[in-house]
């Protein structure tokens, strides 16, 4: 079986259309009311009170579903790509195998939730940035990029969706998101534990991994999707992230990076409009 599978070769049927993060970043449009985008609403947080709440929740749920597929593919790859003992400890692979089981269950749940919310599979574009973060040749970088950055974002997303379900009175959404959230906290914790353990005597490798995590955090914050600002649809879930092993300093750094991503997108849109014909 092939090792180190490239992101462009991910198998999907004809219902799905994939886009790279670069392609997604080329879309300067926003959904908030700040700056030049001022007409829509006073807050961009994903709550049922938003006029477009149902469609926004469906889109996010679809993003979760394809994200779960890629997380499953990524964790499976980490089980297989590295030589046991030499490149990755057996216990780490055992954790990744457990994560595969969780992600497979999350895919099934997300598919059911998508159908419940009236979404056809493949209806929205699939951003492959999640699996791209799982293509590193160093298992420690994968743990930093996937388990801590990616699964960290999943904590934020599931917390937002769970609250959305509770506020809307949707019993299935709130219940399912709560259960998946519990798994995500575990996945992040596994990343935190293994990152510390493997790099215990290798500060350079640890620094490199944390730097990679920071880069991935910024990529996942594209356009300010997640931050502590009301302009972002998804709120940074500090409490659950603390439970997952993030320090106060790390959380502040993620908040700063997310806000920077939001500002960058706003500036990009303002620039586009300034140069476009009236």
């Amino acid at each position: 079986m092939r090792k180190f599978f490239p992101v462009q070769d991910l198998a999907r049927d004809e219902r799905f259309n994939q886009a790279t993060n670069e392609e997604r970043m080329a879309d300067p449009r926003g959904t908030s009311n700040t700056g030049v985008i001022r007409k829509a609403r006073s807050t961009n947080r994903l709550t049922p009170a938003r006029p477009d709440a149902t469609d926004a929740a469906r889109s996010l749920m679809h993003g979760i579903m394809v994200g779960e597929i890629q997380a499953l593919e990524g964790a499976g790859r980490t089980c297989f790509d590295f030589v046991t003992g030499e490149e990755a400890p057996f216990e780490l692979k055992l954790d990744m195998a457990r994560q595969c089981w969780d992600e497979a269950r999350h895919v099934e749940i997300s598919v059911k939730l998508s159908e419940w919310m009236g979404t056809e599979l493949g209806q929205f574009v699939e951003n492959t940035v999640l699996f791209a973060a799982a293509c590193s040749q160093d298992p420690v970088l994968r743990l930093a990029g996937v388990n801590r950055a990616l699964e960290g974002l999943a904590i934020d997303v599931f917390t937002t969706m769970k609250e959305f379900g509770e506020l809307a009175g949707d019993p299935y959404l709130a219940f399912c998101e709560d259960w998946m959230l519990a798994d995500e906290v575990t996945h992040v914790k596994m990343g935190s534990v293994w990152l510390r353990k493997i790099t215990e005597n290798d500060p350079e490798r640890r620094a490199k991994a944390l730097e990679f995590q920071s880069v991935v955090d910024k990529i996942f914050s594209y356009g300010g999707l997640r931050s502590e600002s009301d302009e972002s649809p998804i709120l940074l879930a500090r409490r659950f992230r603390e439970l997952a092993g993030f320090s106060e300093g790390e959380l502040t750094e993620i908040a700063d990076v997310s806000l920077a991503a939001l500002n960058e997108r706003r500036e990009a849109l303002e620039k586009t409009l300034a140069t476009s014909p009236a």
Partner: protein
Amino acid sequence: MKVTVEPSIFSIVKYDADEIAGVAKEMLTLLGMESTNLTIEVDETIAMSRVTTTMGDPVHVLAMSAAFENLKKPMTFSADNTKFSLGRGLLRVRDRLTPNFSDAPADEDLSIVEAATWDTYCVGRLSRLGLKVHKQRWHYNFRNRHGFNDATDKHFATIWESDDLTWSQLTEISRHAIA
């Protein structure tokens, strides 16, 4: 019928003003609104699918860019999505042209519950006109605004299957659905 699209050249999304005008004319014909003139303004800075209309001659249609978008390929045009988005907006216009909807608030003033109720009524009719619609999407939207229970589902079915409701009847059903 006269249809004008603004902007005439798009700088962010890859839409064609003539193509949008063509789809709009097709929808006006399908809905029996051949004597209606339209100005369609597309706000290409916002990736939302909202469409609001303001009565007048021409009728002003304000569409956020995602209303006409191929969601599988962001920023590209989808004739099907455009048909569907314009169809919802134009059915509201057609309703407003009758005395039955004289007491309906302007699109901008509709509450999210009123908007979900009217959307249900419009999409149900569009489905019977042959447009491809995903009923569950609108059912979920209605539940989000009215509640997740059997009684709400019954009221959804009543609105979805109706062709000749008045604004008072729509709001009455909606009130019962929430109660």
